[in-house]
């Protein structure tokens, strides 16, 4: 006689649910659930994704509380504030709901069981080192950031500038906003004002507007473009030779492992542990392969 099926409902909470970045993360989580469901006929895991549409700590906390109130079996959440999520995470754990941090981690006092993701500062450093390989240790660089004060982006910026500060590179931080049109305008203005600039970089998905900027100003091949995240336009820019490389933190992994960990925690009481999702660098050498995977939702 087959035992009664155990059903688990896991919820992913991200801090800006409407952006495309989370697509592979959610896919990773769902794939993990499907694999487990297939492998173990006694369990049925469902995963869903929620969160504030735009970055908003207090709204994300409200949502987390609501999810806890709804009585789910596990929470996978980004923690984009050093302390704001300490209380609700503790509250969830007290209610027997395991919580795994993903993508963006909170301060050291947060009681989440584990964190799966990239160190943002490390990722920023990686961008900086790769950039120096391409442009040397002198010259001007424009750095775009969508939103000042956004924890993860601010940390990437910190890592990047730490590396650049060790060189003679002069950099300018530019706020591009999340709107592509405006982002392109700002970078264009920067390049016009600094015709000797060697590179433009973005610490976020706005990297995708670099192609337009360089094409527009006829600077293809003269100014290096680099940045973060895998979005179709950025990959296309790498293929077309506008953008040199982009850094990826393997969001698929950031969704996949937490689901596995929650499953193992529930079924076998195995305590989750931190996992580094790595720093993936995508450039002309591997872009084709990545594009194929991105098509399928893995990257």
């Amino acid at each position, binding site marked *: 006689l087959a035992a009664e099926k155990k059903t688990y409902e896991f919820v992913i909470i991200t801090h800006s649910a409407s952006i495309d970045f989370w697509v592979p993360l959610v896919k990773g989580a769902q794939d993990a659930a499907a694999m487990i469901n297939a492998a173990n006929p006694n369990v049925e895991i469902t995963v869903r*994704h*929620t*969160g504030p549409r*735009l*970055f908003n700590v207090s709204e994300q906390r409200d949502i987390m509380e*609501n999810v806890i*109130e709804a009585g789910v079996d596990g929470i996978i959440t980004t923690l984009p504030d*050093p302390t704001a999520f300490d209380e609700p995470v503790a509250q969830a754990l007290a209610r027997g709901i395991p919580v795994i941090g993903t993508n963006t981690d909170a301060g050291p006092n947060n009681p989440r069981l584990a964190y799966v993701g990239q160190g943002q500062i490390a990722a920023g450093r990686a961008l900086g080192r790769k950039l120096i390989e391409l442009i040397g240790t002198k010259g001007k660089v424009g750095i775009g950031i969508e939103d*000042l004060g956004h924890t993860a982006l601010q940390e990437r910026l910190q890592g990047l500038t730490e590396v650049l500060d060790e060189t003679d590179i002069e950099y300018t931080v530019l706020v591009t906003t999340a709107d592509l049109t405006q982002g392109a305008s700002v970078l264009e203005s920067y390049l016009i004002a600094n015709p000797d600039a060697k590179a433009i970089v973005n610490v976020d998905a706005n990297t995708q507007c670099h192609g337009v900027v360089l094409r527009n100003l006829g600077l293809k091949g003269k100014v290096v473009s680099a940045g973060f995240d895998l979005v179709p336009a950025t990959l296309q820019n790498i293929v077309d030779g506008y953008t040199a490389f982009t850094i990826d933190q393997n969001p698929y992994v950031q969704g996949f492992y937490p689901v596995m960990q929650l499953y193992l925690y529930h079924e076998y009481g195995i305590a989750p542990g931190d996992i580094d999702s790595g720093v993936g660098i995508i450039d002309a050498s591997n872009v084709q392969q990545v594009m194929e995977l991105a098509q399928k939702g893995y990257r």
Partner: protein
Amino acid sequence: MKSTSEKTVAGGPAAQPAEIPLYRRILQRQEFGVFLALILISIFFSVSTTTFLTMPNMLNVMRQISINGIIVMAMTFVIIIKDIDLSIGSTFALVSMLVAIMFNTYGVNIWLASLIGLILGGILGLINGVVAVKGQLPPFIVTLGSMMIYRGLALVISGGVPAAVRLPETFFMFTGARVFGRIPVPSLWFLGVTLIAGFILHRTSYGFKVYAVGGNAEAARLAGIDVDRVRITNFVILGVVSGLAGIISMSYLSSVTPTVGQGIEMQVIAATVLGGTSMLGGVGTILGSFLGTLVLGVVRNGLVLMGTSAYLIDLITGIVLILAVFVSSYAHREKR
């Protein structure tokens, strides 16, 4: 003009309402519509989820709406008078950032820091008011500008980095904690501010002047009301209250980011207008604003409880918002 007879009857002031039965008085109230919308939405969520109508969830809702709700109360005054303030989210951030820095970095006593924060909120509101009113400039543009300025200041003083704040226990008790069987203190603040706002708007000469200026500023001026002063005072109150909300939020979250409060102006204005306050001036009540805040809070809460997809939440919220304002204004439409 319902009937000519009603108009010409010399109404002894108390004579009229006494004859109208209670249920009709409720039906005729301007807030009935938004109340109806609230009831309908609540019934829907009670049926479609098991958790909506539980005490812990209700308390959660009250907590979640309290930060915005506190600001809604003061925004009601500002909108009745036909002004607008887009800078509230930035005031919220700047005040809480400043309090956090005073407390964290300079070791200022948290009560004193909070008091300074409230005064700062008032000054930020005063600047809005004086520039818009005395400069005779459109408040929309002025406060859009100050929204950027105040936010910029919050970024500058914080260096773009969030501040974690571990507050003394007593202060936390009075601002961020839960008391008596898990009642969240922020919701008590919200109720308190609501009652005070209701008293000021509906029971004092100041509230009367707000309605008069909102109805016809020129007439109010000719009748001897200091129009500029009332408008500026409104902005100051809104600034103080936004700062208060910021401090409570800081206490509750134990942290401040320089981006905190971004976009709340739209939610606050939406709640106010949904509650029946007209952007054309002269019309609105605190009870309506309270109910409008509740409607928005319940929708947000209920949709998450139902497990609605993140992509659909906004879509559905939008639909519900329009339906709610429809029910709300249709129930109180004058028939001719």
